[in-house]
Structures are given as C-alpha cells and as structure tokens.
C-alpha cells in the first residue's frame, strides 16, 4: 500500500494513508501510542555541550534512529563564549519550524493540496535581563515567538492559512511551547 498509493496526483512525500492507518490501529491499542523521546548530553567546556539523539521508545518497543545525530550547543562570542554551535534556545526554534512544516506537508497531503515551496522565518523575542537575574519580573524564556510562512501551493490563500492553522493545532512543539509541561531535573 505504501508505494502503490504514490500514483496520486498530489505528492508532498507524506504517507498520509500510513498515518491514518496508525491512528485507527492505535485507537484499538492506545497503550502502543505511548512514546518516549530521549537525548544524551555531555558537557564539553565552557558553555559548550554536545547532545546525541539516537534511541527512542514507541509502539511497545525500543527503536534506533537510522543514524545517531550529535548537536553542539554553545553561546556566541558576544557572551564571551567560543560559539561552537547555536544557543539552546535557537534549537527550540529548529524544533518548532521542523514540527510545523512537517505538519503543513501532512495536512496538505490529506487535503489534496500540492505544495511547491514552504519557507518559514522564525523570530523569538527575549529579554536577557531574565537569564542574567537582573529583574525577577522578566522571564528567562521567550516573551513571544513569531513565525512567518511563505508557501507556494496549488491552493487559495484561505486554504493555505487553514493548512498553517491546522498544523499548529496538531503540533507537538507548538503545544510544548504554548502550554506548561512538568519538568523534573534531578541528580542521579
């Protein structure tokens, strides 16, 4: 079924049938829908750390990514750091962009909309008085995030807006950012 369905006119490279099939299968065994995403992190030096992503759990068993990925996080030179990689908050933008765009592709596929190009610009506003502990009224995290999408597709402006809106509704990272999450950090 996976390949035979590729003859459809609309092809955004998303296997929607598989996703809908998964939804149906999981509605009968909701416990299989419990996933765990993991990261292994190691401090290198200064503000530089390395985090590796490889294993995750889902559908009742352990999985490995095709290849492990390693990400460097650091801070720019203006923070007197060595800038060995993006800041951690910039990775949050990476996650948000990736999540929303994949959602747009999936929703477009499901609604039979052919995409030609999907580009997004993300801006996260932050007042660093928060992280520097200068003003307790200012939060550490983003004050707000603005995402602007430029989308070329065989669809009306309203339909494209609906794609973007629906992808936010179904986005894990959008939810993680817009709603509180209980976070436990402990020392083993």
């Amino acid at each position, binding site marked *: 079924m996976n390949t035979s369905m590729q003859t459809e006119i609309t092809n955004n490279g998303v296997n929607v049938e598989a996703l809908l099939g998964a939804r149906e299968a999981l509605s009968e065994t909701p416990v299989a829908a419990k996933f765990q995403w993991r990261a292994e992190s190691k401090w290198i030096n200064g503000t530089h750390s390395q985090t590796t992503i490889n294993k995750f759990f889902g559908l009742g068993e352990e999985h490995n990514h095709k290849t492990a990925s390693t990400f460097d996080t650091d801070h720019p030179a203006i923070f007197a750091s060595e800038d060995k990689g993006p800041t951690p908050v910039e990775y949050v933008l990476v996650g948000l962009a990736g999540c929303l765009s994949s959602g747009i592709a999936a929703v477009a596929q499901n609604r039979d909309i052919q995409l030609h190009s999907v580009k997004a610009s993300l801006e996260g506003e932050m007042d660093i008085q928060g992280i520097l502990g200068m003003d307790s009224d200012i939060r550490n995290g983003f004050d707000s995030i603005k995402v602007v999408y430029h989308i070329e597709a065989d669809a009306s402006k309203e339909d494209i807006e609906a794609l973007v809106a629906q992808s936010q509704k179904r986005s894990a990272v959008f939810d993680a950012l817009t*709603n509180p999450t209980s976070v436990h950090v402990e020392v083993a």
Partner: protein
Amino acid sequence: MFNFKKVSTIIIGAGPAGLSFSQQLSRLSIDHVIFERGEIANSWKTERWDSLKLLTPNYKFNLPDFRYVGRDPNGFMEKDEVVERLTRFAKLCDAPVHNRTSVRQVTKVTGGYRVVTNRATWFCRTLVLANGAFGNPVTPSVASSLPKNTLSLHSKQYKNPAQMQPGKVLVVGASASGLQIANELVDSGFDVTLSVGEHVKIPRNYRGKDIFWWLDISKLATEYTGDVLDRLRLQNLPSPQLTGSNLMPIFDLTHLSKKGVKLVGKLSGVSNGNYQFSGALKNTCKLADLKLNRLLDKFDSLPEIESYSDTLTQSERFSSTVLSETENLSVACTDVQNVIWATGLKPDYSWLKVPVLNHKGMLNQTNGIVSSPGMFTLGLPSMRTRQSSYIHGIAADAIRVSSDLKQYLDKPSASQSTLGQKLLAKIS
C-alpha cells in the same frame, strides 16, 4: 427469588429522548416503563441556569407527533416552557413514567437485564439508555487545586450572578454555556476573564435566516454521520457558540471583549499560585474564523437557496476575532474570587455494570445500538446525525432505533428458544 417485576422494555430517563422513545414503543404496542430519577424533564427543571433559553428557534421544537404551535415560532423558549411542553407531551402520549425512581444498578442476565432501582428490582428484555449525554459535569483536574476561598462552580450548578462572591470571575470554556455565563456576569458588573480553548464560532442569523434554517437546507443537520473518523471528530466538537436571542446576528468572543471581558487561552494549569493559560489563543481563534468562513462559503454556494433569493439578504462575512497584541498567559489565583467551569458534561453510567464502555467511559454504540444485545440508546451527540442530541433531532432517531428494538424483540431470543425446545421435548 421471584421478587421482581417484568417488562419488555425499560427506558432510563424521561427527557425528550426517553419520552419520544416511549411514544414510539406505544405505537408499536411494546410494553415498557420509564424510570426518572426526578420528574419529567428533570435536568431542565433543576440543572439549568435561570436565564437559559433554548438554542434552537421555537419552530424547531418538534417531538414525534407533537409540533410546535405558538405565537413566536422564531423566538427562543425559556427553560420553564421546555419543561411545560415536555410534561404536556408525556401526558398526551400517556407515557408510563415512574417519577423519583433512580436506577442503582443494571446487570446483564440471561435473556435481558436486571435493573435495580430505589423502589424495586425489574427484569427487562431490552433496555434503552435515554439518561442524556449531559449527566456528569466535566472539570479539569486543576479544579481541585484552587485556593480554599475561591468559589468554584460548574456551569451545571450556576444559576445567576447573585451566587458570585464579590470580586473577579474566571469563566473557563468558550462554548455556548461559557459565553452566555460570561456575558451575563459582565452585564451584572463583574470583572470577567474568559479562558478560550477550541470553539465553534457560528452566527445566530445569516443573510436574514436562522442558523438552523441553514443547517436544514444544507442538509448538514440531517446528514447521516456515517464515516467513523468523521463521526469521532463530530462527537468531540465543542457545542457551537450560540445563544437563544435574535438581538444580534452573531454572539461571539468579539462581542464579549467589546464589553470588557478579557480573553485568555485555554487554562492549562495552576503553577506557583498562578492560573496558566495556553499561548495558542491566536491560532484557536484563527481556526474558528477559517472554519466559519468555509461554512458560509458552503452556504452561499448551495443551489437550494436560489428559490429563496428574494428573502435572503446580501452575503457577508463576520469580523475575525480581535485579540490584544500581548497575550495574558497567567493570572494570580489570589486575583480571582470565582471560577465557573463551563467545561462540558458527559453521560453518567456509574450504575451500568455491563461492559459496554470504552476506555474514555463512553458507550460503545453504533446508530443507537449498544454493543450488548438488547441495549439501545438515544440522544447522544452525532449518534446518527448532527442533530441527534438536539430536541428536534430526537424524533427521527426514536423512530429508527425503536424499530431496531422491535426487530430484536421479534427475534426469538436464545434462552427462550431453548426453553421452548425443552418444553416441546417434554410434551412429545
């Protein structure tokens, strides 16, 4: 041991669904009783706020063989009139209602069900759950972590603004109940914050016709909700933002925010003494606006409306929900003296000891036929059509499901046929 009463069918609940079903069973000459924990139309009598009016125009108030006759077909009746009409309907069809009879337990027994009430134990071959889709209040878990001196009321317990403590009010939920209660409270001078999650924005009146006229002519109301995924989606939809009033064409968030109601996102929790709201409000509102416009596009392009063109006003689009630039993501708990949970209701099946509920506590049923043989239901949202949970949608479902029930009764049941065979064997 034989200390129980027997009847072919027991109906639980004497609201619009139970009474309509009873009317159909009488037509089919099926002996039955209705158990009602209070009196006819009990939840309309005791579990609605004072100012509530029906969301559907009066001309839609039609039960089987009982059509609306009155002076105000386009008006919206008050809850007392709903109670009065349902009581009249029950009398007219001589419904065998047992008032103040609450069901304590239902179990499956050979050939039917054992129904224990506060008065007696009954046996029936078929059972109809018409106890309503809105028996139990649903409140998010944060409701239990409010400061002690905060007044916390579910919309089901809300009667009028006089119940409020002096101070500010947080209304959680932006469907019909939440909007109406927020509106009544802001009109009474309260400082109101409304927490808005996913909602269905819909006009009362479009191009000079009531929304229910549009739902009928577009066949959206009566369309069979066949596709399972589609039905699930419909069943999870919040109730539309409507109010029983013709004073304005649309009763929406913009109307409330113009009156001073502060709009915040979905309540996601209480942390460090603050109510925390989702930052997704803009998208939630955008989704509702886009969906509304798609619906109105659909209405405008209906070929069926051509013959009404002289009575229809110009096509129009309602203004998008306007939100302030900076979203308020948290409010101190100490700043809120009253919280109203307009967070919905779900059916109460606590007495139902038959394995017919799914992991969400909802009934396993298709078109009103429950997964346990001889058990039926009526009045659940989008059970057969979009209007299955509306008063005017009951008649069609009652006719259909009662005929399914009759078919079931006409089929000789397994226990009876073995008993019959044993008797035959003895005789011969």
